[in-house]
């Protein structure tokens, strides 16, 4: 498990967390299938892993909780889906989706980030996201309105048939590797360090000469791009985009997934996505009241384990350790 702050020397290539992440992506579908789910589910879990990582890039790093990132997921999904009709080449369409999401996020960041923080920020992003939802269901000629966007063309990837579930998983895995890798790169850069500092003490960072608003704006835009990739991938996975994906219920679920995984750790949200979506796919055939179970799990985690799965793992590790924890680790747990 990597910690986002205070890493002194870069990890060697073999121990590099992204290498482990790649290995995990390779093993993941076998595990999912062994536990009774399908390869389709494995791709679905990855979509949510990217989404939660994207949201956490903003929330876990700058402390801005957006309740409207579903709109970037939706923008990515619609743009990638529409572009696939012109250019049926998935990597290009995904990039296009991310670019559109970032292009939409840019003016919004300029308007919102400077003016709002905290719960005000959450409420305003939520309202803006909901506004795009209503726009999407009205623009029936483009988005398909309430029926959603269909006719999404997968095409082939240099002769590989992507309509096969297994091949599509490899596409999802590469997308997740690149998108999450980009997020990792951002968090490890000096930019990411400043964002962390903003999260920990927003008032002091300006005294170091950093313009906090600019950093928060950029984090907002980058996280929008990653959510856009997740949206694009979901469009290709489901071959359909529902307007509901833009709604606050979707964003709220993703935010809680990130929290359940652990916002203080980089891979926590991705792990949370897998855990929650796994639980969800298990519950859906059993009871139609499954959202109630998920809701209870969410509320229980917020109340009892705000550090999420990653926080719990950390506590377990502490139990099995002889030497006392170092000061920075203690500080980290307190935060």
């Amino acid at each position, binding site marked *: 498990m990597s910690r986002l702050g205070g890493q002194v020397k870069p990890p060697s290539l073999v121990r590099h967390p992204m290498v482990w992440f790649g290995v995990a992506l390779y093993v993941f579908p076998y595990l999912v299938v062994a536990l009774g789910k399908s390869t389709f589910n494995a791709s679905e879990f990855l979509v949510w892993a990217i989404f939660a990582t994207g949201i956490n890039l903003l929330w876990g790093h700058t402390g801005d909780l957006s309740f409207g990132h579903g709109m970037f997921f939706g923008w990515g999904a619609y743009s990638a889906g529409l572009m696939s009709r012109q250019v049926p080449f998935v990597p290009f369409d995904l990039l296009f989706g991310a670019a559109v999401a970032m292009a939409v996020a840019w003016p919004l960041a300029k308007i919102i980030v400077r003016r709002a923080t*905290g719960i*005000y920020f959450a409420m305003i992003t*939520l309202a803006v996201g*909901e*506004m795009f939802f209503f726009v999407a269901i009205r623009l029936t000629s483009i988005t398909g309105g309430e029926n959603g966007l269909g006719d999404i063309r997968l095409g082939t990837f240099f002769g590989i048939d992507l309509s096969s579930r297994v091949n599509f998983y490899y596409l999802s895995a590469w997308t997740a590797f690149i998108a999450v890798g980009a997020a990792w790169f951002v968090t490890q850069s000096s930019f990411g360090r400043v964002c962390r500092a903003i999260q920990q003490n927003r008032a002091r960072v300006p005294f170091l000469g950093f313009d906090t608003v600019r950093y928060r704006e950029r984090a907002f835009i980058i996280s929008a791009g990653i959510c856009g990739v997740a949206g694009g991938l979901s469009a290709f996975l489901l071959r359909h985009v529902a307007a509901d994906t833009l709604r606050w219920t979707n964003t709220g679920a993703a935010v809680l997934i990130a929290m359940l995984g652990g916002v203080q750790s980089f891979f926590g949200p991705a792990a949370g996505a897998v855990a929650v979506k796994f639980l969800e796919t298990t519950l859906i055939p059993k009871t139609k009241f499954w959202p109630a179970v998920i*809701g209870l799990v*969410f509320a229980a985690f917020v109340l009892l384990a705000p550090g999420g799965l990653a926080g719990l793992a950390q506590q377990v590790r502490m139990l099995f350790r002889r030497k006392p924890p170092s000061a920075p680790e203690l500080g980290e747990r307190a935060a």
Partner: protein
Amino acid sequence: MVSVLAATSGGHQLFDLFLNGVILGAIYVLLALGLNVILGLIGVINFAHAAFYMLGAYLTYSWASHIGFLPAVLVAAVVVGVVGMVMEIGVIRPLYKRIPEHALLATFGLTLVAEQAVRWHWGDYAVNLDPPSFLSGGFSPGGFTFPAYRLFVVAATAAVVGLVWLLLNRTNLGLVIRAGVLDAEMVGALGINVPLAFTLTFGLGSLLAGLGGAMVGPVAGIAPDMANSIIILAFVVVVIGGLGSFWGSVVGGLLVGVVRSVLVYWWSPATELVPFLLMAGLLLVRPRGLFGAEGVFE
């Protein structure tokens, strides 16, 4: 304004829309006021607020045929207030020491539970609640129709807003709550039970949501997704009015209700979009909303 509207060709229709907007606005006022009282005084944003509103509506629906409409409205509102207090003690109180976002997320989780609970007990489909017989008529002076039930909603809302204002500003409880917001530790040191005051405040806010829901049934119908669609509007009203501002919620609620309803006359998608456009436009000019004070929640 009424005479101006009457002079135009669609005057009557416009007037109906305007009156509808005032009713909608009254419901928004109750909802936003409850949300804003909790937010302004305790600093917690309660996502489950609209779930309380929905609960109020369904309880009234269930009880109106047994104990009569008006008693059902009152009992439903009080029961919702009690449910709110229980939730405050069980879920919100442990989160006071954390960042406010955690209370937002915990209550969001609970809304998922609430919606399923309603679907489980009352079913997936919308239900109808008729206004009581003594409020089912209407007056029509000069050709304009005033349905009695709608006038009742407006009058009741105005009375409740007045009472809440008096409670918060002219009673000892209000004093304790407002002092507790400024410095809970110091107020506690004076021998006052601050957690109890917070619980009562939370109950009051929930009661307002329950009351709004209890009265909305005959106007807008009752369905398990009514919470999801209205919570955003309540947030928008609070943001437009200004976080923590009492009169902001009142003015914002009426403004959103009326504008939303009247603009349908010219452009029907306005119903959904206008509250957001209003909010966005206002935030560009006044980032803290109409009556928001500087430094609140920043």
